[in-house]
């Protein structure tokens, strides 16, 4: 037994018990998957193993010896490496320079022997079957190649235990296959792998054993050969998804129409290729897909945040949107809950009134002749925020002081209360507690009954399945399939998300 985590607990100062006495072990050459939903505690326990966090209880044993890691360098010295979701790569430097970063080969002690670095990276690549051109600059590499560089970096540090944190989240489906092959061959060469993921098909494809976590606790440890996906997902979720069937509503006329939209992304790769969707009034249309397949570009094209569209048409109630400014598009009847509330949804240093006022400062309700009526705004926002169950102490509070869930509710309140014809919600419940999640979902459903056309983009498939009347699946910049609520299920969507085709019925 190479690694043993025994009764690991992590209690944060704010009272959250992220890990509750979790124990598991890892053998040499084994691939262990750790699965669980958001907030199950899997990232926390890996942070503990990698020295980014310290446990409040329990012990770690490596080869039978107790270890306590003060920081990642400590963990690395013990042969533990981690490929994180956010790559720690330097974009303006080459693959070779990045792989050896921190342990550079030197000449005369002071100088960076770059030639030797290139040689070593080539050698490393050949040894592990991870070919990569050592002279390519990271910023010119596709995401899959960048991840390969991270893996090489970890191998360069002589890691024996390699942790992958949600590695396929940023990859295209072909790149995911490459990754799984890499993981298999690394294990065959004697490395031990821990794979953190919520993608059960990957677990079944590659892992030897699987640890299921839920609510900070270890639920079960099974051999993947002894189980199947539905069993694992049931353990992950803990209960049958109570599908509160949302009321059937007759959909109205087409509100948003996107036809054959194409857009060149960075590095010349097409971000959107002939993408076409439409959304009717009184309808919730969900877009499913692995993030990075063009969803963000599609949203930014519709809302006017990005300008370089190379072809196609976008109309809102017949009015062309391409070429209009962000403000004009909003005034045409578009509201948008952005995917990142902290960078785009709010200015954390401003107060709640100012945050809620954004994009409404020209409405005659709140301003006249360029002067803002803050008293009225405060009155109205007070009522609005209370209606949306936002917990705050004063409107003068800074937006950054609200909890994630409350800030998200504020943003949802702000955008929904515009009663726009088209409501776009991206990742509406990311990082939000269960209570707030339910509330936001109900608000979205209400807006639908009130006649809005709603476009929902989410990486949470359950959310999409729960709310959508129709589901589009995006893959590599194009719509790969369309499913109606009645026929939608996660297996089919999963197939479409990974570039496949449905065999029995055409979309």
């Amino acid at each position, binding site marked *: 037994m190479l690694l043993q985590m025994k009764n690991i607990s992590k209690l944060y100062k704010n009272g959250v018990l992220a890990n509750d006495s979790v124990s598991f072990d890892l053998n040499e050459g084994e691939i262990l998957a750790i699965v669980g939903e958001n907030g199950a505690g899997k990232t926390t326990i890996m942070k503990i193993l990698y020295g980014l966090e310290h446990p409040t209880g329990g012990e770690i044993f490596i080869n039978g010896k107790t270890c306590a890691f003060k*920081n*990642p*360098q400590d963990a690395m010295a013990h042969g533990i490496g981690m490929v994180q979701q*956010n790559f*720690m*790569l*330097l*974009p*303006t*430097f080459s693959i070779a*320079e990045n792989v050896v*970063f*921190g342990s*550079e080969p*030197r000449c005369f002690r*002071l*100088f*960076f022997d770059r030639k030797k670095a290139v040689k070593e990276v080539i050698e490393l690549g050949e040894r592990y079957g991870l070919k990569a051109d050592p002279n390519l600059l990271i910023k010119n590499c596709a995401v899959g190649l960048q991840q390969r560089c991270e893996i090489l970096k970890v191998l360069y540090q002589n890691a024996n235990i390699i942790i992958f944190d949600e590695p396929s989240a940023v990859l295209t489906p072909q790149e995911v296959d490459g990754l799984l092959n890499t993981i298999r061959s690394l294990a065959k060469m004697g490395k031990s792998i821990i794979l953190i993921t919520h993608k059960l098909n990957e677990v079944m494809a590659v892992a030897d054993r699987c640890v299921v976590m839920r609510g900070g606790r270890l639920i079960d440890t099974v051999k993947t050969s002894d189980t199947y996906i539905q069993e694992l997902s049931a353990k992950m979720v803990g209960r049958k998804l109570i599908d509160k069937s949302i009321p059937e509503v007759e959909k109205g006329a087409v509100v948003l129409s996107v036809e054959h939209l194409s857009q060149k992304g960075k590095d010349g790769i097409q971000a959107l290729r002939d993408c076409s969707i439409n959304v009717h009034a009184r309808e919730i249309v969900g877009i499913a897909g692995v993030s990075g397949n063009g969803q963000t570009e599609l949203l930014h094209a519709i809302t006017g945040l990005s300008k370089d569209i190379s072809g196609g048409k976008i109309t809102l109630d017949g009015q062309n949107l391409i070429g209009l400014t962000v403000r004009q598009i909003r005034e045409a009847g578009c509201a948008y809950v952005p995917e990142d509330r902290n960078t785009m949804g709010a200015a954390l240093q401003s107060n709640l009134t100012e945050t809620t006022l954004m994009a409404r400062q020209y409405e005659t309700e709140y301003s006249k002749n360029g002067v803002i009526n803050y008293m009225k705004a405060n009155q109205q926002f007070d009522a609005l925020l209370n209606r949306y169950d936002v917990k705050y102490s004063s409107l003068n509070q800074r937006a950054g002081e609200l909890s994630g869930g409350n800030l998200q509710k504020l943003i949802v309140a702000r955008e929904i209360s515009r009663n726009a014809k088209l409501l776009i919600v991206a990742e509406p419940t990311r990082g939000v507690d269960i209570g707030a999640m339910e509330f936001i979902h109900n608000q979205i459903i209400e807006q639908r009954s009130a006649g809005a056309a709603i476009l929902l983009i989410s990486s949470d498939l359950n959310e999409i399945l729960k709310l959508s009347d129709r589901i589009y699946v995006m893959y590599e910049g194009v719509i790969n399939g369309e499913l109606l609520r009645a026929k939608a299920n996660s297996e089919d969507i999963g197939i479409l998300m990974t570039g496949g085709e449905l065999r029995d019925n055409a979309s």
Partner: protein
Amino acid sequence: METNFIFAVLNSAIRSTTPIMMAALGSSICNRAGVFNVALEGQMLIGSFTAIAVNWFTHSIFLSVICGILSGGVVASLVALLQVKYKAADMVIGTSINLLVGAFTAIMLYVLFGVKGSFKNPALLTLPKISLPVISSIPYISTLLRNFTILDYLSYVVAVIMFIYLFHTVHGYHLISVGVKSEAAESMGISSLSYRMGAVIVSGLLCGFGGVALSMGQVTLFTENMTAGRGFIGMAACNLGRNNPVMIIVASLFFGFCDAFATVAQNRIPSQITMSVPYIATVVALIVFHGERAKKVKAA
């Protein structure tokens, strides 16, 4: 216009370049580490003053130069502490320190020498001008290279050393990594805080050097606020030179040339206009040679 005159102007340009180039190098090392240091002007001015003061009291050229350089480092330490370590807003710290040093040196000018405005005295030792053995007999080249002090020559050596440091050593690689993506650096155990503070202090030493060149290079005197915006011209040169020491040499020479031109043309064109030439040249050069949007540096 005779050829020798042209070389004389070039000579004057090269001599004017030294302070600007040192400020530009100081700016570049801060930028590379991800620190926006606006206090270059103050770091330079204190060097100018300290050199003259130490010159007066110790009659030692060597000590004057060393103390001038170190004084720049001392002021930079204040910046390092307040701006990098305690994360105060960069514009505020930089501007306040520039104003503070301006006031401080003017006061000390009065306190130590009893004069206001400017201090000049034959008893002050001047930096020896270097004349190279063989070269000084070649007709035009001798004009080009005459009257350089050791500081002028050293400044190019410093630029080359910085180039080698940044692009060929491991330490320099780590410094650049801190500026490019500090979380990546931290993840490998590299302390962005140490590198940033170090970069700021080095920029202080470099600006101090530039300040010494200013007050003891071509002339030996101190005037209140004698840096006259050179710290910022240095920032512009650094900008033009894309934070690359070798390109900074070229960019700095350009500004030095504008400075020299201003002095030369004073006979034909009113001095008020010629004195504005370096500043106009800075703005024009930045417009003409604009590059892609440079990443805004933050010490986050």
